[in-house]
Each structure stands twice: as C-alpha cells, then as structure tokens.
C-alpha cells in the first residue's frame, strides 16, 4: 500500500519555513531578561491527507510548534503558508480564516470543554463563533458529529463531567470537526487515556482521516503510537528538528544519534525482547542559553570539534530523509 498522502511534487497544505519562537524569561537570580529558545529554525511541510508525527521529550518544543501554527502563541521568526496563505502575517481580524481550517485536539479535553454547557452546545460553539447557520442547524450539525464519534441521542444533553476521559476526548474530536477543518493539530491526544480506550481513539482518528481527507499534525512522546499513525515523522531536540523521514525509513535507518538514543529508550513490548540500550551522558540542557554549535553535542557520544562550534545544516540524505548532524556520512 502506497502512502496515503499526496506526492511531494504537489503543493503542501501547510509549509513551515524557519519557524522560531523565543520567549523572554526572567533569569533565575536578578532582573535580567533572558531568552528561552523554545523553537529554533524549524522547517517542515504537511500534505493533504497526511499524518505528520512530531516526537521528542518534554521541553523539545513540539507543542510550541503546534501552537504557533494556530497563532495561539505568536512566532518570533520564520514563515508558514497554509493553502498558500502566509499565516504568520495574517492580521488578527483575519485569523478566523486560519482557525476555521485548522483545529486542535488537546491531551486534556476537559480543559477545552465548558463544564456548564451541554455537550451538544459545546460542539456547536465553534459554529456559533463563526456565525454559521441558524441555531437549529447548528444543533443538528452538533448531534450529527456527536453521533459520528459514538454518542447516542440520550447523551447529547449531558454535561462534560458525566463522561469518562475517553468519551471527553471524543467530544473534543467532534468539536474540532465542527467547522470542517483541513488540518487538525493533535497534541498528545491519547497519552492521558487507558490502554483500551487509547486504541478506540486512534482508530477513530484514522477512520475520520480516511472519510474526510484530513491532515494531522500528531504530537506525541509515545513512539509506538506515532509509528502506528504517522506517515512521516520529525524528531525534535531542544527546539530543533534534528531528523525527518518517512516512518518506516526512520525506524529502519535512524541517522541522528539522538533519534537512535530515543528509539533505544522505548521499552521492548515482549519480555523475550531485550533492547540494546544506548546510555547518554547528563540531562537535557536548559533552552535558556542552549549549547553552541549542534544542540546535541553536550550529550552526543560521537561529538567532535566542529559539533561544539558550528550548527549543522539540514541535509537531505535520501528522498525525504533529512538530518542535522555534522558526522553523517563521515
């Protein structure tokens, strides 16, 4: 079976170029302002119908990347094009365009549902905000969407607290679908759920994608989940996209030492399988004053002189496989 997404020759649905996001934070001692580089010079594209996985540890900048695309936080550098529209320079009154086409699903759906609203009304809310249809039509649409994600009519008038975590995530998905988006940013959508519920939600996301031709930016730390759902994967470390490849290629031929380390850390799923574990020195450095040169050099077992001084360029080593490492090919 070929990839579900369009070929790279086509124009991408979303194209992110050199995205950076720097937060100004107060230094720990004193009043001096310091810069926290959450995302640094990140470029990637997402095609129609594709799932792009973004993996990395906490603090790697993967959620910030997702949030800047929706302009929930303003980027400090770079460009992004969604359906050829330059979304980082959209004036705020035109953000409605972006927020109709791009939606987000969160780890904790409870935080995006109004506890005092019946669930159908929460799902209809985006339609009301964007002034679509009459009240009756909006309700009908909400009921239809809730039905699609697995609720029966007796549930529609209930409140969010009456549902379990998995059911709330379904409500969150229905709400995200209300405006017929093209791209959904899924930020750790299953990590708070029990195992048996996790597979229900992943199946639902895959079905909806097939039905509606949706694209997903799938942010998660669980490698087996990302591997299952994503067509291509980007690996982030300390705000940098250090490697990107089609999923099978990334797992078969990880090139960046960090990617190899990350893959080796995931526990093997069967007691008879023992994984050769790569041990790394030290802890994740702070994104305030990140290391010079290659951000990974402080922990990289292969680090050489250029790694400490020069930031490695983005190299495409085979079709669709990019890596930022000085040592690749040496």
């Amino acid at each position, binding site marked *: 079976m070929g990839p579900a997404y369009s070929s790279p020759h086509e124009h991408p649905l979303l194209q992110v170029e050199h995205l950076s996001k720097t937060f100004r934070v107060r230094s720990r001692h004193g009043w001096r302002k310091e810069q926290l580089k959450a995302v640094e010079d990140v470029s990637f594209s997402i095609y129609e119908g594709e799932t792009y996985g973004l993996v990395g540890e906490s603090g790697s900048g993967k959620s910030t990347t997702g949030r800047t695309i929706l302009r929930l936080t303003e980027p400090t550098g770079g460009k992004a094009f969604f359906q050829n529209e330059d979304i980082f320079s959209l004036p705020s009154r035109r953000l409605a365009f972006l927020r109709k086409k791009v939606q987000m699903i969160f780890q904790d759906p409870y935080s995006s549902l109004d506890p005092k609203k019946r669930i159908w009304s929460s799902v209809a809310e985006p339609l009301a905000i964007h002034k679509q249809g009459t009240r009756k039509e909006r309700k009908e649409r909400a009921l239809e969407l809730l039905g699609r994600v697995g609720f029966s009519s007796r549930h529609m008038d209930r409140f969010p607290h009456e549902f*379990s975590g998995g059911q709330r995530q379904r409500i969150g998905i229905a709400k995200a679908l209300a405006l017929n988006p093209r791209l959904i940013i899924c930020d750790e959508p299953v990590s708070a759920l029990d*195992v*048996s519920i996790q597979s229900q939600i992943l199946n639902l996301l895959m079905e909806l994608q097939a039905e509606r031709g949706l694209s997903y930016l799938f942010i998660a730390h669980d*490698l*087996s989940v990302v591997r*299952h759902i994503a067509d291509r994967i980007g690996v982030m470390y300390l705000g940098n996209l250090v490697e990107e490849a089609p999923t099978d290629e990334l797992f078969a031929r990880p090139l960046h030492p960090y990617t190899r380390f990350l893959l080796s850390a995931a*526990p093997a799923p069967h007691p*008879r399988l023992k994984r050769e574990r790569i041990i790394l020195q030290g802890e994740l450095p702070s994104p305030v004053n990140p290391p010079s040169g290659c951000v990974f050099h402080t922990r990289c077992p292969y680090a050489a002189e250029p790694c400490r001084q020069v930031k490695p360029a983005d190299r495409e080593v085979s079709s669709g496989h990019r890596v930022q490492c000085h040592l690749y090919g040496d």
Partner: protein
Amino acid sequence: MSQAPLLEIKHLTTKFSTEQGIVKAVDGVSLHIDPEETVGIVGESGCGKSVTAESILRLFDEKTTEYGGQILFEGRDLLQLSEEEMRKVRGNRISIIFQDPMSSLNPVYTIGDQIMEAIRLHQRASRRQAREKALELLRLTGISDPERRLRSYPHELSGGMRQRVMIALALSCEPRLLIADEPTTALDVTIQAQILELMNELKEKLRMGIMLITHDLSVVAQMCSRVIVMYLGEVVEEAEVTTLFDRPLHPYTSGLLKSVPQLDGRRKQKLYEISGAVPAMHEVEACCRFAPRCPFATELCRSKAPSLEEAEPGHRVRCWHYKDIQANGGGSDGSGLLVTA
C-alpha cells in the same frame, strides 16, 4: 520456590464509605511477592491496583475505610497491627514511591533535610551520620554532585531527578519491599529507561522485593518476573511474565495486549478495541465483571461470577470460558473477535 513469600495477601477487601454508599474498591484479592522478586500489577484506572498497594501500608483514613482479609508480612498480619506498630513498618520495612514525586516532597525543605529526617525517624543516627547516609543514597541513585543536591529544594530539580530523590528517600531505611505506583508514568521515555534500570540495579544490590504498579505493558515486560492483572477490584489473571505475553487466558488480558500498537506491528492497521469502558464501582453486579465488555460473554457469564482457577501451575485465571477461547485460538493471535456460538 520453597522459601516463604515476603508478602502474602489473602482475600483482601478494602471498602470505602462514600456518599453513594459503600464502595468495594478491592474485592477478595490474593497475591504474593517472593523475596527479591519484581511483581507487576497491571490494569486500567479504577481497577483497584493502587488501592491494593496503599492498603498494604494502610494509608487510608480508617474512619471511612474497612479492611478485610490478611496481609502477611514478616510473620505478622499488617491489618492487625496498632497504628504505632504500623508506623514502624511504613517507610522502614515497606516503602512506597508514587507517580508524581513533587506531591511527596515538601517544597519548603531541602532534599537533604528530607532524607535525613526519614533516616533519623527510623534509625538511631546522629545528624552527621544521617548526612553521610543521605549522601550515600544520592550517590546510589545516580545523582550527580550529591553534595550540592543535598542543599537543593525540590523545585530546582528535573522530574527524573526528583524521582531519583524519591527512590533515595524510599530506600533510606533499606526496606524489604518497595511498592512503586506508576513510578515512570510522568517521565519521558529516556528518563523512564534510566529509572527502571536504576530500580533493577538497586533490587539486586539491596535484595528487596518490588511491587510495580503500572498500566504500561512494555514496562511490565522489561521489569517483572510475574504479573497480576486486575479488573474492577479483582485479580482476573496471574502468570509468569513470558507465559502471560505468550498465552494470555483472560479475554481482558489478551484484549489489552492486542490493543497496544507494537513497534514491529503493521502500521495504520485498525487496532483491536475492547468495547465500552470500565463501569463505575458501584454499578458492579454479581456476575463476571468483564462480561459487559467481553466478546465471548454468555448467559453464564452474565448470571454467575467465575472464581480464580489454576489453569496450569502458576497460571491463574478468572473466566468461565478460557478453555474454549484458547481452543478456538481467540487468545493472542490478534485475529480479533471470535464469537463462540
């Protein structure tokens, strides 16, 4: 093994009185842990795995909690001990670590103060001796620059470091049994790998037993020699770890195993689903508790509760139909539903 178990729980029930009435969070659980053994307790939220663990240390408010059965540890029934005797067991003979180390560390005291307090609470030691011991524990748990860490406050440490400190704290009195309740769930995979490795090393070094509570089956696969699967307050299956992964007998266990995406599985395939969700505890009826979600359930399952039966030596299962399901290959081959006519 002929040696006496380190911990033996017999027919434990833990009941809470709540506004909705009495809730039996743990209902007749029996299990044992041998010395120097790591036993995994798996199950989803609400299955009673954490309540079982906390019942061992009697951490619940005894005004609203009623325990039944026996918890035998070092020749005594912990449920019969006075509160004062129990205090000598907690943190001394049996220690517990939780998912979120921040909630167990006091934010206004330094790491050193907290470890030293734990040592001096249970052991006769001068301040200097306690400090030496604290340093040794921090070193043991792989914390770099322990001298400085002793003077750090919890918020100055990363999540992985805090969990190391919690482990140091839990080990301060060289317990015989360490209960670890989702110790790595809040951590990144890379840190999780380090913490699990550390727990394994320390188990060898200190020769203690570990009760590892988790929902993550791959953590179980890497750490445990025996596994106990719980569902709605009951043990539904118990087996040696490779047996459980190769030949799960309970439909719930095999469902769990099948619903996790595998790193070597076929991508983009529809994943196995266990239908429905765990019902609330007070809705439990007198039948097989998994019946409402079980693809194999029959009238018998819906009317009468099965008991925990020994299917083969060391392999126990609570299911009326495990033999038929097994014979029809519905166990672990991933073929999905197979409805027995």
